[in-house]
């Protein structure tokens, strides 16, 4: 791990930093619970978004393919879990069977989407993925007839929580630790990927596809791999979402969600893992903080609520996307390569 940090000859500092970070992450839910259990739940969703953003970062940040339908993979993962662990079909498989299965099914969908479309130019690909996201949602909404599979817009209820022998995950704090472990795992996988042979090949494709192909990189398969891996992380996050919520419906997988995840990646800094995590946390927490401050503020100023916090949240997303692209195109915490690339073109 150490080589990922600039230690200036003092490697022990890193370990002290890790210890402090680990301790604060471990104690965080108890501190949050003092303010209210809601905040633990909000943190849990934030961690889910971190996973999603990291998954999308593989596609957008590493390989440079803009995917606007990423939430479809999240939906696939969520529905795989929901169908195999709920009264819907009377199946109750354990989570350690379903999660890998969900990841595999999501990856399969990633390949199905990618195989015909990956030769398209970047902006076409964006639109096709967007269309794919909508198709998945339309199917989820309508697959209640003639055979009831997804229960249509009413969604699936009574989804099992995660359980190990002698341990059932029910409270928000328990899920926090579970999510944290999975998220850390995903972060490690991402860090290892970035500097691997595959990661460097993705970077080469992103920078100049023709040159990459000339260097002997199998661009098609590597792009497919990026799609599949990104999708599988989305699938895992979706399965966990299902279990935490105990209820899912197609409502949760709308276009806006895809765009939100894209915003997180773009805002934080495409291609930089820490930047993406920062972006995901910012865009998950800031709207919640707004929710708690904007309503009282408006009521104090105008006597009633003029603008819903939800609307303000979306307006901020939109503004963030525009402003980041105009003034800091590489994101808040840019990856070194990406920054050079984007600024070179602007100049």
């Amino acid at each position: 791990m150490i080589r990922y940090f600039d230690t200036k000859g003092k490697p022990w500092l890193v370990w002290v930093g890790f210890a402090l970070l680990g301790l604060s992450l471990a104690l965080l839910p108890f501190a949050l619970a003092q303010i209210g259990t809601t905040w633990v739940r909000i943190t849990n969703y934030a961690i889910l978004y971190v996973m999603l953003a990291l998954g999308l970062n593989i596609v957008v940040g590493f390989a440079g393919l803009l995917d606007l339908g990423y939430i479809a993979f999240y939906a696939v993962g969520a529905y795989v879990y929901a169908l195999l662990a709920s009264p819907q079909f009377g199946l109750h498989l354990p989570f350690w069977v379903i999660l890998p299965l969900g990841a595999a099914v999501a990856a399969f969908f990633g390949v199905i989407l990618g195989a015909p479309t990956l030769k398209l130019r970047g902006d076409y690909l964006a639109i096709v993925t967007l269309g794919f996201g909508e198709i998945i949602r339309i199917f989820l909404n309508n697959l209640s007839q003639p055979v009831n599979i997804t229960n249509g817009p009413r969604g699936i209820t009574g989804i099992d929580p995660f359980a190990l022998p002698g341990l059932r995950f029910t409270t928000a704090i328990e899920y926090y630790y579970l999510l944290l472990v999975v998220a850390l795992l995903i972060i490690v996988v991402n860090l290892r990927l970035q500097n691997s042979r595959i990661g460097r090949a993705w970077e080469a494709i992103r920078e100049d596809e023709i040159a990459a192909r000339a260097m002997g990189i199998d661009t098609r398969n590597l792009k497919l791999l990026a799609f599949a891996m990104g999708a599988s992380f989305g699938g895992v996050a979706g399965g966990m979402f299902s279990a935490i919520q105990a209820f899912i419906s197609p409502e949760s997988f709308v276009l806006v969600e895809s765009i939100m995840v894209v915003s997180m990646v773009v805002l934080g800094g495409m291609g930089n893992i820490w930047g993406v995590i920062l972006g995901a946390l910012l865009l998950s927490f800031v709207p919640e903080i707004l929710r708690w401050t904007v309503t009282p503020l408006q009521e104090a100023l105008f006597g009633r609520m003029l603008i819903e916090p939800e609307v303000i949240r979306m307006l901020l997303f939109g503004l963030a996307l525009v402003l980041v692209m105009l003034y800091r195109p590489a994101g808040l915490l840019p990856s070194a390569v990406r920054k050079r690339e984007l600024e070179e073109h602007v100049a």
Partner: protein
Amino acid sequence: MDTFLQQLVNGLTAGSVYAVVALGYTMVYGIIQLINFAHGEVVMIGAMVAFSVINLLVPTGLPALAIVLIGAGCAVPLCMLVGYGMERLAYRPLRHAPRLAPLITAIGVSIILQHLALMIWSRNVLAFPQIIPSRTYFIGGAAITTVQIAILAICLMLMASLAILVYRTPLGTAMRATAQNAQVAGLMGIDINRVIAVTFIIGAGLGAVAGVLFGTYYGLAQYTMGSVLGLKAFSAAVLGGIGNIPGAMLGGILLGLVEALGAGYIGDFTDLCVWGLPLEACEGGGHFILMGSNYQDVFAFIVLILVLVFRPQGLLGERVGDRA
């Protein structure tokens, strides 16, 4: 046969509206190779503004046609302003940035416009006032209303005038020159920035009219209507060959037809009983329909994906380089 003719009429009407919206995408793409993601929202704002104005004017007792015309008359300049504004603020500064950058700002602009509309017009589905007295005519078993005829006529007129503008006027020549090679066009004395701005303005104006027509036809308007409509129109533009003006017209009409005929027949095609499968549900003339007309919205996307996979340059487009 009746279903076929009827769906043909419906498809032509919807398709001509798609075509007008698709023109906005294709013109902008032709000139600066940008998918103006927010174009659908411009259409939505056109419909919304017209909705407000028409509602305001209905009690005055003016003739119905005048009210609709005033409504459109307010929507068009406002949308043109929105179109100009977004080109100026969000796209122009990024004209030389990598392609991903303006695409992302376009998504941002689209979110902003959508939620501004939500603030102004609420999140409800608004019932567009149906004030134009509608008569129904029958042609060989298919019903066609006056509104449908009017929409077809208006769309054809708009497309014809745009064709004249682009192929027969100095401004159109400037636009085509800029599309071919912006740098050289600039050296020849064409004010590129002006031409691009005008393209956005014309596209937005067309979009506004399409929004009004769409609202009048379906009788509904909502702040989210822009994204699906925009996506379909974009598919239409791609189908015809993006950047190609006659292509957008053809693509729009074809997409409308595919969608209407698809929705009309998909139930029959996916009825397993028609295919002769020995299912319990089929006994006594029953049906086992896999996919009904509620899948209508899927067709546009499927067309889009098929076109991009098998003929990425579209029906009328020329082959362009693959590099992003």
